[in-house]
């Protein structure tokens, strides 16, 4: 049994490309500031969103009956219109014993949209859900890098970028 903390990273792709330029450096990309990222987290009964590097979450350790998983997802604010953002890597550099190394998971799922010829009727289309998942091992502080790629509507990779937020598991 597990409790899931969802973290959504809304990415202002155009501003990142304008501010940090294009590159082809997946392993050593430029560091982004927080101004073009919207970190949204569900924490208990509240949704927190801010541009702070710190996300505070209530977590249960793995050896308790309910372990906490953290799932990170990233999308462009335009939801793929013009640009899309994809998380490519996580590197923990502080608190490596607080959470497990995040791993990439892919879920085939579907979305619903109104039928153009009959808007009262919904039709489904298959979509792919990428997320990175980790399990909380104990209370503590974690600092990490996440890496993301920005791809444009022609399929061209416009660049890789990274950011260094933190999580405090309480």
């Amino acid at each position, binding site marked *: 049994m597990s409790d899931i903390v*969802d973290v959504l990273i809304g990415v202002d792709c*155009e501003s990142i490309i304008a501010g940090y330029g294009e590159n082809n450096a997946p392993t050593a990309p430029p560091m982004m500031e927080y101004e073009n990222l919207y970190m*949204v987290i569900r924490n208990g009964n509240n*949704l927190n969103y801010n541009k702070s590097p710190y996300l505070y979450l209530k977590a249960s350790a793995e050896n308790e009956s309910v372990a906490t998983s953290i799932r990170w997802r990233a999308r462009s604010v335009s939801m793929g219109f013009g640009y899309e953002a994809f998380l490519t890597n996580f590197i923990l550099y502080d608190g490596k014993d607080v959470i497990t190394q995040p791993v990439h998971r892919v879920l085939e*799922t579907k979305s619903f*949209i109104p039928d153009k010829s009959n808007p009262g009727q*919904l039709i*489904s289309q298959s979509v792919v859900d990428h997320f990175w998942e980790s399990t909380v091992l104990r209370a503590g502080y974690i600092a990490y890098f996440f890496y993301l790629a920005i791809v444009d509507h022609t399929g061209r*990779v416009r660049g890789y970028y990274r950011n260094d937020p933190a999580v405090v598991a309480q």
Partner: protein
Amino acid sequence: MTDAVRNVLAVISVDDVLQKHGVNNSVDAAVMLDADCMGTFAANVSGYLAPLPPASVSSVTSAKWVLWRATSLTFNAKYHCLITGVSVEDTANCFVSQPVMQWIDRPTPLVTLVETAVQPEIRTQTETVWAAEIKGAGNVKYEMSVKVLDHHGNLQGYYRLQSTLAVN
């Protein structure tokens, strides 16, 4: 002047909504959400207007369209948030037209992750957005109506949210 689209994304934590308000099946009594359950974010996309119909309004700003979208915090896993309407205050009519639903067939980048790099491919996907043509710069107060479904397509309720968008 660069042609641009102003994108607004409403993120809704459906688990919180259902905990606080329960399942609401009444479209006429949609529950207003507060900031504990949702957030709205905005960003531009420039030079990529091709999937949109030609704007009939001659904009004085760099942006021609505002597009509203809504998603659950988990995107398509677990819940779906469908916008059923967006309306702007009468006083904002000088800044944007009344929003209407648009179907957009657009190329969508998908990727395969190969170690730490991405291998992209393009797939055409249809999305529905609520769109308004921009007439001028100003603050636009709007209300969005949202229908929430679970991942099986079962109705979880009708909700509303209000926010303000700065068009500049």
